């Protein structure tokens, strides 16, 4: 039994990896595939660590659903190494310490072989020591502030150089409106503060003066934006073309955009470039006054490729809701999951150390028509898209990077980390290698 099944599934994966993405997806849907033998034996457990209650439930529930879809699909294709995949779902309830507890439970009690989870940086920071101590594998699907590189984490979302920097480049360009003044507006926590530090240094290197950069932080869940929007208006009225870079997170976005509309700030006057507003968030808004506002992501639901169409179709069938939107972190889970499947297949085992080493260099077609590759610093190569909000709640792509961009774990725009790189391949095998002194800082900086 174990003789035949691995061969079968290996062939299926060989096709997936080698053939073009369209052919691969076509193969998965060939009637012949229905004959793939049902997986048997000890199940391989996959942990899902997403908040299903509390403030983050609004974003993370979707990611739990997409993981269930991917696992079900993989089982239909014959499982992994001939064994079925079994999801283990826990609910850390948007409570950061609980994230660490649930991670420990997944790794030591349930003995899962990979965990897909977390959204906020604080939840990732709280589970990181657990994953390092118990040598687990975590796939983290959300764009984040960078400045971290752990051997046990695969960062499938965007690093700042894969979202924030290209977005600002677009705003500076003629096509993006040649902005000369920037209001960096964000929620008061680690992601906006680090991103804004990187952006401020980057903007200064592009000749933007200190007085042309305004930084403003608000508490989580801010709902009264009157003063801040009027400050932005005043800042923008000084005769130079102004743009807002928004790292406002979660619920606070809706009243922010509502107030912009109220005070008559349109995208043609002062465009807002958002880093955390996706299709999901727009689903709850009247988007008519927001037409033309911008967002930077590595994926948009509206991108017209056969892979994406198929993914959206499957998603609608799986959720039985033809209106459920897809978004960037969902694509990140899709890429991460398929990479892990490839790595386990290639290593022929779920042994964590072997899988971690095999992961580097794995390539997986993404949903927007390119190929994502796992880099030695556990980040991906990703394309960057700038989308404008349309009145139907979708984004239309107005700009994209000419090729994919390699994710940087450490930002060159922060003086302390200028010389650091992450490289988990031999011989460096270090998350924070200083290229100037040629030494590994070790645990201290991670």
């Amino acid at each position, binding site marked *: 039994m174990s003789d035949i099944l691995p061969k079968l599934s290996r062939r299926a994966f060989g096709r997936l990896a080698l053939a073009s993405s369209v052919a691969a997806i076509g193969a998965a849907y060939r009637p012949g595939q229905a004959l793939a033998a049902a997986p048997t034996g000890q199940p391989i457990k996959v942990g899902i660590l997403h908040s299903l209650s509390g403030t983050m439930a609004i974003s993370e529930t979707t990611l739990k659903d997409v993981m269930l879809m991917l696992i079900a699909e993989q089982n239909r294709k014959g499982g992994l190494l001939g064994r079925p995949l079994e999801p283990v779902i826990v609910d850390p309830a948007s409570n950061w310490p609980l994230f660490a507890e649930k991670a420990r439970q997944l790794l030591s009690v349930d003995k899962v072989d990979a965990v897909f989870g977390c959204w906020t940086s604080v939840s990732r920071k709280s589970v990181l020591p657990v994953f390092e101590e118990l040598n687990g594998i975590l796939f983290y699907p959300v764009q984040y502030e960078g400045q971290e590189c752990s051997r046990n984490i695969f960062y499938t979302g965007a690093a700042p150089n894969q979202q924030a920097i290209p977005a600002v480049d677009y705003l500076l360009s003629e096509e993006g409106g040649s902005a000369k003044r920037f209001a960096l507006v964000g929620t008061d926590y680690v992601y906006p503060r680090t991103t804004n530090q990187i952006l401020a240094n980057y903007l200064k290197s592009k000749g933007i003066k200190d007085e042309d950069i305004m930084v403003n932080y608000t508490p989580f869940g801010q709902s009264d934006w009157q003063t801040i929007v009027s400050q932005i208006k005043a800042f923008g009225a000084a005769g130079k073309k102004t743009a807002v870079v928004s790292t406002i997170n979660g619920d606070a976005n*809706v009243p922010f955009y509502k107030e912009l509309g109220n005070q008559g700030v349109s995208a043609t006057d002062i465009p807002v470039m958002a880093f955390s507003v996706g299709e999901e968030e727009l689903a709850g808004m009247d988007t008519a006054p927001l037409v*033309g506002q911008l967002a930077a992501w590595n994926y948009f639901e509206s991108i017209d490729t056969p892979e994406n169409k198929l993914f959206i179709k499957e998603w609608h069938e799986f959720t039985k809701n033809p209106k459920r939107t897809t978004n960037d972190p969902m694509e990140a889970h899709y890429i991460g999951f398929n990479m892990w499947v490839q790595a386990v297949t290639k290593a022929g085992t779920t042994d964590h150390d072997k899988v971690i080493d095999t992961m580097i260099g794995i390539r997986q077609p993404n949903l927007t028509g390119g190929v994502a590759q796992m880099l030695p610093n556990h980040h991906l190569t990703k394309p960057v898209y700038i989308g404008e909000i349309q009145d139907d709640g979708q984004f239309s792509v107005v700009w994209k990077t000419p090729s994919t961009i390699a994710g940087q774990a450490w930002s060159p725009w922060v003086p302390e980390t200028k010389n650091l790189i992450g490289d988990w391949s031999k011989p460096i095998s270090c998350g924070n290698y200083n290229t100037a002194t040629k030494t590994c800082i070790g645990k201290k900086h991670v």
Partner: protein
Amino acid sequence: MCRFSRFLWAGAVCLLLAFSGMQVAVADEFSGLESGQFNTIANTVSALVASGNSQAGAVIDALGKRHLFYSPAGGVFIRSGSTYVDARTGQFVQNTPADLKPVRMNNYVRQVLASANAELELLSPQDAVRLKAATQMYAQHNPVMLPAINHALALEKNSRVRLKLEQASAAIVLAQPMKTGDEASRLAAVKALGSAADLEARGVLSAVAMSDHETAEVRKAAADTVSSIDLKQRLWSILQNAFYGLSYGSVLLLAATGLAITFGVMGVINMAHGELMMIGAYTTWMVQQGIRATVLWLEPVSLLVAIPVAFCVCGLLGILIERGLIRFLYGRPLETLLATWGLSLILQQAIRSIFGPTNIAVVTPAWLSGSWMLGSVDITLNRLAIFVFAFLVLAALMLIMRKTSLGLEMRAVTQNRRMAALMGIRTPRVDALAFGLGAGLAGLAGVAVSQIDNVSPNLGQSYIIDSFMVVVFGGVGNLWGTLAAAMTLGMGGKILEPTIGAVSAKISILVLVILYIQRHPRGMFPVRGRGVES
């Protein structure tokens, strides 16, 4: 009329083309629209307007409405209904190519389009449209527009539009670099901009005041005007902040009035108050959806319909909660707190299960969107409406408490429950109705909040702490205290926010309230009298 003549024109052009046996031109002023490049499209739009082509108006109009399509093989088409018109000729097209794509738009194109539109609108017969166009020209001060503005200025009769056009022309003059010999015109421009006295004018003038290329006299005039504008702006900004404070305060007031009844008057710590607000907001959404699906003409006033509906839904739910849960816990405040907290979690999850975890979109009707300028104070209409609504609700509540028998009985039960019962008041009934009233008020707050905040299962959590703070700070059991506290906290927050930032403002307000409560545990307006237990 106008469009008809355009058709005639286009027909004539077409006939001419047909006679001369020419095919559609290879590269004309329209072909840029087919390029798919934003810069080219934008340049094409400006060139079209400048060319005076008879089709320019129709093309710009269609592009703005997203009715303009192109075929990669060539050809630009305007969609009208289900048919297409060739944009070049204005003639109906029988067989449109199958691969039509909308002409691409981004902010840059939109911006060029807006100024192109403004240029056409400058000659509109309506005063309001011309004023809007002039205001837009003024804000953009694009030198290309100067001839159009001067042309319009020569024709303009309306004094307000004239003034705006003069300011627009002045802004353009000053935004261009100084040339020798135009000192007088620049001085006049500085003066004209001084009459505008807004932030746009300040931006242009401060650039002039700091420029090295201007003469000393112009620089000084500009600097003087800047400082006088600054003074005016500072005065206006006091009023502006006062408006922000009042509107923020009225949101707090709405959220807290219901709690002032349940907590203040009845002594019930209702942690589910925020969730009742949330249900009010979801009711608003359901009313909107219901009206949209059935009686369309009611749509603009669906919000007004939602007000009584939300009050009733939440009020009934409140009575249900009181009868089913709270009445067993009177006299045990800690148990009430825990029970209602549990209830709030249940309600949240119920809404999440029924409506999903994502936000839902409650539409703001057109008559509540936008703002209204009072001098330099920007009064946003939905905030103004909430302000008025909050005071109407408070007034109605005070009337109920003072003038109705329910109010009298409620006050009697609050002051001395046993005596009231002896006098024949059915205290359980009063309790249920009072709690229902408080819940209904939360529903009203939900209707209001749906216009400014996001409607999601988490809505309640963000208001519960503020509401308790207002009620405790104002003095438990006193509606005037609730009003005073809401306005104080609202104003305080808005005064602190511009100087120390939103995060520190929030913390400082909390610290100040704690310090105040330390010294005056009964709040700003303590209830006095024999009935009050010490």
